[in-house]
């Protein structure tokens, strides 16, 4: 414990140096700005800024890049809440309740919850990383392909609960999402699947194209169709900050989200993207106000936002202890470190203690910066809603088009987004939910990959899923969830609850 304090003291002395503070602030600011612009992600920004970091000290460079990463995550929630535009996997869930809150005139409260929840979760996860990072590595390594498959299978089963209303429609959308996820090059054989000879599809359908189309573009079409609803958003701005009641409701959700996110974030590959979904499912089941879900429940913003940020922090554990990046942003950071002559991995703690502990402490500093930048800006963001819709929606469309184009520098993705916009409009007419589709789209291909890898390694023996304790317990929980959903008594109970709520 004493060494932990000495280490943290060393870390804070590094993180609080004037230069590092400035670059943490700069990173968080740039990150927020690009996060707010739909589609322009941290990967593109960090790769653009990479050459600039060659001239900096490695610690400063990584602190700035990390700031961009957190900033982008937070900025992404802002557009998700205000404009129904999820730019990345984690903010899809924020859209569900966050945008409803904004329509109810509680945009300020939703943004405030996201900022405070993220800061709290980030602080807790930072301490966890500092105290037990190296120990938790063994958790990450104990997950084999069979265990990942069962974890994601559990996720998919429970995600049917996400659907509001008909379970059949929910499952239908999940299956459709899984189907869309299969488009592209097969990981096992290199074979092209469902690409119909279109070269642009050989790497699959883009997540951002689906998410922005299904949510953002479809919402614009719906709003234009109903002149009366166009003004709803702009007239009701309401109080900017949380009421006492809202605060009380958000606290337990933030706590649950923090725990869930910290644990799932440790798993490389998929852990972090599961965390927000997972937290939303948990809140829907256990929160006291579960009947309010679907109408703008603050728990549905607080939990997932906390989980998402906690996972973003704890996903540094595999990077710092194994040298294995959990996602594309982390891969860029490894690249930046290697160019600076630093090898991320277990030896980094001993070889570069100032970098290791400085980075950990700067995570917390970065979260603080985000709070400092964003709390005063909530008023400004909410003012955005007062812009007349006839000016606002063309601007959103333009930013969406620029954003989606900039991901692969490819016009095809813009057409794809338009297509999914029309499809999303059709879906809302048919009362089909977009979120289960996206969950299926994200989890389906990962599940397939792990299933086939597990089967390859076991030479086709399915017992591998039952013999491994982690996998067996996940499957058992999934079976219970499935039974509970299919039992007629419980099912009608769910429908009654839905009817009360909606």
């Amino acid at each position, binding site marked *: 414990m004493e060494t932990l304090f000495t280490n943290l003291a060393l870390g804070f002395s590094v993180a609080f140096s004037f230069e590092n503070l400035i670059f943490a602030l700069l990173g968080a600011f740039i990150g927020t700005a690009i996060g707010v612009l739909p589609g322009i992600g941290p990967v593109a920004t960090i790769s653009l800024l990479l050459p600039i970091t060659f001239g900096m000290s490695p610690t400063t460079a990584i602190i700035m890049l990390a700031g961009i990463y957190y900033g982008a995550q937070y900025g992404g929630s802002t557009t998700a809440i205000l404009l129904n535009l999820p730019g990345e996997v984690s903010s899809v869930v924020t859209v569900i309740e966050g945008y409803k809150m904004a329509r109810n005139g509680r945009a300020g409260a939703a943004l405030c919850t996201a900022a405070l929840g993220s800061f709290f979760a980030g602080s807790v996860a930072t301490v966890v990383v500092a105290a037990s990072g190296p120990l938790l590595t063994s958790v990450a390594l104990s997950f084999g392909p069979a265990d990942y498959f069962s974890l994601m299978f559990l996720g998919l089963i429970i995600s049917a609960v996400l659907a509001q209303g008909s379970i059949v429609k929910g499952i239908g959308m999940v299956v459709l999402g899984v189907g869309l996820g299969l488009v592209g090059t097969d990981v*096992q054989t290199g074979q092209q699947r469902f690409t119909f000879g279109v070269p642009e599809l050989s790497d699959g359908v883009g997540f951002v194209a689906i998410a922005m189309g299904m949510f953002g573009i479809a919402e614009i079409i719906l709003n234009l169709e109903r002149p009366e609803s166009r003004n709803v958003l702009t007239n009701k701005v309401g109080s900017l900050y949380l009421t006492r009641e809202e605060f009380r409701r958000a606290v337990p959700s933030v706590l649950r989200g923090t725990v869930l996110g910290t644990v799932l974030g440790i798993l490389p590959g998929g852990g972090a993207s599961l965390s927000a979904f997972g937290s939303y499912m948990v809140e829907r089941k256990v929160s006291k106000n579960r009947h309010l879900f679907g109408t703008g429940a603050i728990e549905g913003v607080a939990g997932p936002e906390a989980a998402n940020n906690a996972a973003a922090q704890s996903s540094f554990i595999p990077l710092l202890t194994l040298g294995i990046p959990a996602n594309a942003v982390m891969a860029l950071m490894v690249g930046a470190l290697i*160019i600076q002559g630093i090898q991320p991995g277990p030896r980094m703690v001993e070889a570069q203690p100032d970098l290791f502990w400085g980075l950990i402490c700067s995570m917390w500093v970065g979260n603080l910066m985000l709070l400092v930048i964003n709390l005063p800006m909530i008023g400004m963001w909410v003012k955005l809603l007062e812009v007349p819709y006839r000016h606002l929606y063309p601007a959103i469309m333009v930013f969406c088009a620029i954003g989606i184009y900039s991901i692969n520098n490819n016009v095809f993705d813009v057409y794809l987004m338009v297509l999914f916009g029309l499809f999303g409009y059709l879906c809302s007419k048919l009362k089909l939910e977009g979120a289960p589709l996206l969950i299926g789209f994200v989890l389906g291909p990962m599940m397939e990959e792990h299933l086939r890898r597990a089967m390859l390694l076991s030479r086709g023996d399915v017992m591998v899923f039952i013999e491994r304790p982690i996998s067996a317990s996940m499957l058992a929980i999934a079976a219970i969830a499935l039974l509970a959903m299919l039992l007629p008594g419980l099912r009608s109970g769910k429908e009654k609850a839905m009817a009360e709520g909606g």
Partner: protein
Amino acid sequence: MTGRLTRRAIAAGTLIAGASLLTAPRPLRAQGFPSGPIRLVVPFAPGGSTDLTARLVADGLGQRLGVPVVVENRPGAGATTGSQTVADAAPDGQTLVMSNIASHAISPALYGNLRYDPVRSFTHIAMVITNPSVWVVNPRSEIANLADLVRAAKAKPGGLDMASSGAGSSNHLLLVRFSELAGIEHTHIPFRGAGPAMTAVIAGQVPMMSDSLPSAAAHIRQGSVRAIAISSAQRHPAFPDVPTFREQGFDLSSTSWFALSGPAGMPAPVVERLHRETMAVIASPESRQRFAELGGTPGDMTPAQFTTFVAEEVARWAPVVRASGATPAS
């Protein structure tokens, strides 16, 4: 009035003097090149080794040419999407591609419907860096060399599990070539990139992996995996303890490579200028140091040698791709 005239005259005089100073010592200077910012297309997503190498080169080239060299990532279809864009561009030296073993040697065999010819649709300018493959095992594994690996493969039905960063990657194809040569079977376990595959080896889920030296170097140095063979012709100076395939009795050598190419039909002076400046960039001490850290060897080929090299690579990999079962998309 006079004042203004004089000022203009001085300005013009300075310009002329400056221009002649610039041109005089460089008779080979290409006419009108570079005429503006140069696009360097990277046919992979940001963050990979191609992207990192390209950004190092773009930084140095930009300083030497006096115009910005902008890296543009156009990933997709085994690096062929971005390469196609450059094959279709005007051959004025303003659009270049970071050509590599995937886009210009393996994908032509893998993708049946390619519109470009890896040799004839491009002007090959300069080899930038070559990286050997390295085979690694879990440090607790009993496999210490290739002979042990062959023995273990023969003992297991279906052969040994062997991981790589993906089906059709140069590292996967090396597994195919080796298995053929050694007369063994293997079960290929492909991953989505080198990172997850490395995790599986460290965790002991897969006994071995064929990886590129740059991505495996850190793990070998810190002892989380053990290297049993390197695919270059000679041992690597940074890893003098790792024996080559040849030393262990297997006549195999293979290196992945990253290089600079442009559209077919570029003017010779432009090619020469770009070749010279690229060579200067990779010869600078800081580039050498960075390449050494990445585990690569700086390239050393004339444009003509490099063009012949690409043709040889295409011929070398086509039969291996067919043998691997990684099916071409038609």
